[in-house]
């Protein structure tokens, strides 16, 4: 394949796991990323793709008190984002605001808007209301799921409701359904669980083990994509969630993250611990293909779902984000702290 020399690189000082698209920034294509260092001063980098798309500029660099395990940008204010952090044995989650005058300050401090401190267990992720101005947030730890109401002006967040998934499930991550704001998917030890936020109850689940990543297809209702440790990527139709609609081979080792393109239906990006990012095209309509999907055969097939494999990474890739402003651009982050921006334009399906 093409290797990935076309990508634009950027190096963080330390190891890092998470990168997020700044959705609210309508003027530039920007990403937020945070480092994961146990012993050093951690940083949050605000990266901006130059207008020509040839350079990645560090627009802001802020120190963060702890190592960052999860990071998400707010969909309505480009200066607000959430992190999940750890001090080694404790976990916390907070909402931060990038200071107004950061251009002048040398190493500006982030303003803490609110702490999501109702958790007792290990927090996994914070999810923002999928789109538009709404002050609702979800945070998940291994057993509980919390719905928060965030008040930026008062700098406070309060728990609206919570529910426990039970000891055994040990939730690991999730996604908020963009088509139905009352539905949230959470990945657990042995299943993907679906919650109704109005009742705060579990309504449905897909019994499928070892799901690492989950993402809703923003273009198609009822379509969910999961990434698993050993068995690759599965596309599900939530109306008949017994059997996957489609199966993609995934990565040589674990498939860590999977993201649907916000604009082009069927374009899927996956990151794996085999130091590669794969670009897939999975047309959900072709259900007849699923019977014969496999790493070997699919390569031979005329319609190969694997469009490209970006392999220019030194370490496992954990962070992955599409740009919502330029939907053909994605950012990937490998564990060694290298951010790579790539354009998938050459692989876009001709419509």
């Amino acid at each position, binding site marked *: 394949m093409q290797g990935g020399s076309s990508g634009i690189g950027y190096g963080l000082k330390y190891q890092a796991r998470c990168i997020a698209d700044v959705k609210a920034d309508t003027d530039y294509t920007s990403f937020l990323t945070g480092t994961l260092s146990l012993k050093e001063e951690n940083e949050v980098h605000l990266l901006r793709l130059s207008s020509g798309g040839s350079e990645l500029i560090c627009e802001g660099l802020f120190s963060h008190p702890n190592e960052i395990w999860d990071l998400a940008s707010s969909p309505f204010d480009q200066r607000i984002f959430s992190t999940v952090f750890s001090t080694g*044995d404790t976990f916390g989650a907070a909402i931060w605001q990038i200071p107004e005058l950061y251009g002048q300050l040398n190493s500006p401090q982030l303003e803490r808007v609110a702490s999501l401190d109702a958790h007792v267990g290990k927090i996994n992720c914070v999810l923002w209301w999928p789109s538009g101005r709404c002050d609702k947030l979800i945070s998940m730890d291994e057993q509980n799921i919390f719905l928060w109401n965030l008040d930026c002006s008062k700098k406070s967040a309060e728990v609206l409701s919570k529910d426990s998934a039970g000891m055994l499930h040990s939730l690991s991550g999730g996604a908020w359904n963009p088509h139905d704001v009352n539905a949230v998917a959470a990945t657990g030890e042995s299943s993907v669980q679906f919650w109704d936020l109005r009742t705060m109850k579990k309504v449905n689940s897909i019994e499928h083990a*070892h799901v690492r990543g989950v993402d809703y297809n923003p273009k198609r209702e009822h379509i969910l994509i999961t990434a698993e440790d050993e*068995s690759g990527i599965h596309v599900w139709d939530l109306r008949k969630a*017994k059997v996957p609609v489609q199966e993609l081979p995934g990565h040589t*080792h674990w498939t860590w993250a999977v993201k649907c393109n916000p604009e082009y239906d069927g374009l899927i990006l996956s990151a794996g611990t*085999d130091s590669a990012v794969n670009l897939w095209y999975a047309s959900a309509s072709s259900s007849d293909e699923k*019977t*014969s999907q496999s790493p070997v055969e699919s390569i031979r097939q005329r319609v190969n779902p694997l469009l490209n494999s970006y392999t220019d990474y030194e370490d496992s890739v954990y962070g992955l984000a599409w740009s919502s402003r330029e939907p053909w651009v994605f950012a990937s982050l490998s564990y060694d702290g290298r951010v790579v921006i790539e354009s998938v334009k050459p692989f876009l399906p001709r419509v």
Partner: protein
Amino acid sequence: MATEAAPMDEKAKRMRDLLSSFYAPDPSISTSGSSISASFDNINSTSFDADQYMDLMIKKSNLEVLLQRHVQMAAEIKNLDTDLQMLVYENYNKFISATDTIKRMKSNIFGMEGNMDQLLQKIMSVQSRSDGVNTSLFEKREHIEKLHRTRNLLRKVQFIYDLPARLQKCIKSETYGDAVRFYIGAMPILKVYGDTSFQDCRRASEEAIEIIIKNLQTKLFSDSESIQARAEAAVLLKQLDVPVDSLKDKLLEKLEQSLDGLQIKPEEASLLAEHNDSSNDAESNEQLPAKIHEDAVRGFSEAMRAYREIFPDSEERLFKLARALTAMHFENMELYIRKRVSAADFLRIFRIIWEDVVLMDEVLPEAELSDLSAEAAQVTVKKFVARTFSHLQQDISDTILKFDINQREAVEEEVLKVVLEASKKAGIQGTTDIFQDFRQLLDENIGIFVKMKDLIIGWIQNGFQDFFRSLEAQFLVLSGKTSSSKDIEGGLVEGKSSDKIHAGLILVLAQLSVFVEQKVIPRVSEEIAASFSGGNSQAFENGPAFIPGELCRVFHAASEKLLQHYIDTRTQKISVLLRKRFKTPNWVKHKEPREVHMYVDMFLHELEEVGKEVKQVLPQGTFRKHKRTDSNGSNTTTSSRSNTLHNDKMTRSNSQRARSQLFETHLAKLFKQKVEIFTKVEFTQESVVTTTVKLCLKSLQEYVRLQTFNRSGFQQIQLDIQFLKAPLKETVEDEAAIDFLLDEVIVAASERCLDVIPLEPPILDKLIQAKLAKSKEHNNNNNTVSS
């Protein structure tokens, strides 16, 4: 002679032309042959212009040619002249002889008129005399005639009075034909005078006739009578105006009922086939079923023949019957082959049916039985071929699954190997048998099979193609890689069944796919090329024929897929193990390591199992580990060496700041040759084991990265990894990669450690030795228990 004949002909032709031109009314007609080209230089043509010709001549030719032409022309003119003279002379001669003839005719005609008058007179006198004779004899003749008429009338009356008695006599002597003839002869008179003078006579004869009709009917129905007699009876009945149709219906119904007896019931079919087989020795004991059947059918066709003769208008009905019987035969045949039937048995039954059809076809050629049965036979043979293939597939999967049931209890024994060998054998044996069967089909020389030969070859080729395709699909279903359609409907069933599938089975299937690809398919294609080629292209119009290349590809893909699936399921199992290990303890508050953690044992045990399975099924790679034997001896030295190396690295990283440590590892990675962790899996024991180990170590690294460790936690990891090193290297071919991955795990742990202080080498060594001793003791215990 030939040279002389040509000018002679030439001359004769010219003569004829001249003559015809002379006599012909239209000169244009005569110029047929000689003057096709009507140009000027053709003298014989009508449009010949002498002046023009002359001009042309003078213009065209020189003097010599002109002279020559002159001489030639002069000669020709002379010739023509003599010819004409001859003609005139001949004509004159004929003219003279004609004049002579006319003169003679004139003299002969005198005196003819007198003779004629004499003749007339004589004839007149003859006539008058004959008239006289006639009138004198007239009266006598009239009298004689009257007498004769009376006598005839009397005879008739006598006949009618005699009729009842005569009929009775006929009944006694069973000459019904005569009786009917008499009766019909008397019929008109009886009709006219029956109510008056011959009343008694009529009644008596009618009674007699009724008896005759009754007798005739019984005769018609009795099977013992000869067909001719029955046919005659039918004809007589018809002559007597008895309603025959109802009789016919009754008879045909009876025939229909007899059809049931002629069926070859599926249960009996095998019996029939068997008996046919062993007929020679058991011949005397009893009538054989096949023989009985044949007789029955013969009787049936005879009856049909008879009825056809008796009732010519019943053909349609008979056709229907015959067709019904044929159709029934083939239906039963289909039922029969639903069970497992060998080609020989199949053919035997088929032959019987075909004989039946031929028998019936002789009687009723118009019923187009052979066409009907040819169609039915095609369907049946096609089904038979298809069914044979499905049986083969069933056999193979049965062989695989049969062993699977006992597998769990007897992993120690080489069950996998047995399964593999058995299914290989089933595959080879099955295809061989199938070829034998099909060869029998092809060798069969019943007319219908000869016709279908091309079709059969097509079906066989198609059958193999479909067979291999579905076999591959079944392999995948068996392995749980794809869920069968049934499971999709069931939904939940799929999840369960895939859990149940034994990993070893997947491996067996993978190896079996390779076997099919490399052995079975080439063999089959060879066989097909040898004895089943030359199928008409028409037969393949609908689907592709046997394409070994494509099938090989399919099975190649399947084998790789299955192998990958095997590794996946195996690593998944280990992954679960590792996940439990890393999720459960609180690594930040870990206690000091006291011994190697037991998950290492479980990990190694799983690997051992993989090794065992792999050893049973897969071939050994070309790469032989020479170190394997002495690695046990040098165990301690290698471990201590790497230990010191590691120690060195650790202390350094400890003393320096972690930031530079990260930088350092990056730098080290840059300079270290990038170790290829994920290489393609090959079908060898070593490759599979290595890949499994690599994937598991990578998983281990990833799990480590997700945790945060305190000093003791890190030390525990260090200890576990150190312990793993020796046994892993022993089992795996790619030592460099394993080293790299193990180091990576340590590095990952140190990166995620709050306080990196590695264990002192002596302590590490001591703990490992303790573990080794313990496991040895455990093994010994096990051995003593088992022995």
